């Protein structure tokens, strides 16, 4: 039990994530989480105005069920399967984050400076969360997939387009963290 309660090392977690992909493929589906955003737009009625969202979203109900499960899984993991250990970040990472103004790096999953109640009390806090979500939603649909669809499934399926997308993911991430973070924070 103690092994389960401690954070899981990467060499356990990676294979377990591929197990998620195997299960979905075996169930006749595929592993792609960002498709749900399009489905939700379609359910909300976007298909009446934009052909891109005009499809039978009922065919995607299985994927929304996976999303529901993911929410429940997140709840179960923090409530019953965690011992509250800190995240074993590289000490350099912790230092770098302190320079940017993030004082509790690794003590919880997310920085309160971005996701906590005090961040939601500022315009900047809202702005950053909205911009982040907007970039993720727009970029993932433009690229035709996210980490699960391109980096895990696409690369496993030896898709050259997915390699391009993953190169893009890294270009964007490096740009954000190395060039923009020092300006934003």
């Amino acid at each position, binding site marked *: 039990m103690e092994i*389960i309660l401690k954070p*899981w090392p*990467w060499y356990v*977690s990676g294979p377990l*994530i591929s197990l998620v*992909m*195997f299960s979905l493929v075996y169930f006749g589906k*595929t592993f792609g989480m*960002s498709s749900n955003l*399009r489905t939700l737009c379609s359910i*909300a009625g976007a298909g009446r105005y*934009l052909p891109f*969202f005009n499809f039978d979203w009922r065919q995607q109900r299985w994927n929304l069920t*996976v*999303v*529901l*499960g*993911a*929410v*429940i*899984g*997140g*709840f*179960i*993991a*923090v409530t019953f*399967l965690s011992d509250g250990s800190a*995240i074993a*970040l*590289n000490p*350099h*990472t912790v230092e770098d984050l302190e320079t940017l103004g993030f004082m509790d790096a690794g003590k919880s*999953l997310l920085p309160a400076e*971005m*996701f906590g109640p005090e961040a*939601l009390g500022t315009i900047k806090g809202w702005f950053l969360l909205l911009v982040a*979500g907007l*970039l*993720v*939603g*727009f*970029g*993932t*649909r*433009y690229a*035709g997939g*996210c*980490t699960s669809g391109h*980096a*895990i499934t696409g690369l*496993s*399926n030896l898709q*050259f*387009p997915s390699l*391009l997308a993953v190169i*893009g*993911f890294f270009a*964007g991430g490096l740009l954000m*963290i190395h060039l*923009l973070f020092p300006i934003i924070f």
Partner: protein
Amino acid sequence: MKFIRFLSVGIFFGIVLVKSQAVSWYRIYEMFKFQSIHMYGIIGTAVILGIVFLFFLKKRRMKSVDGHEISLPDKERSIYRYLLGGTIFGAGWALAGACPGPMYVLLGTGTLSMLIVIFAALAGTLLYGMMKDYLPH
């Protein structure tokens, strides 16, 4: 039955993402700083096992649980959409510290502010649907 099937996969996925800390904003920052093997190890082992699995699956022509032939669709050939869309996505991934799977998982861990990110991601998807025909693909 099918509901339970997909719900279980989702629950398992959510648990693995929390326990592996792949949902942690800090881990994503650390990855883009190249300061730990953690995230590379997770994605790397998942991809290597995935390549092996899909190779045998195709070779043996394995059937899905419903008896259908399993085939993963090839991604459409193009360059711009993957590089441009990927870069935009990557910037958002680094800032939010979460991609479309972890967003939901984090909501489950009790981070209600993630609802703002999810809402904005829906708006972003909608925006893409509106601009789609004017973008290079």
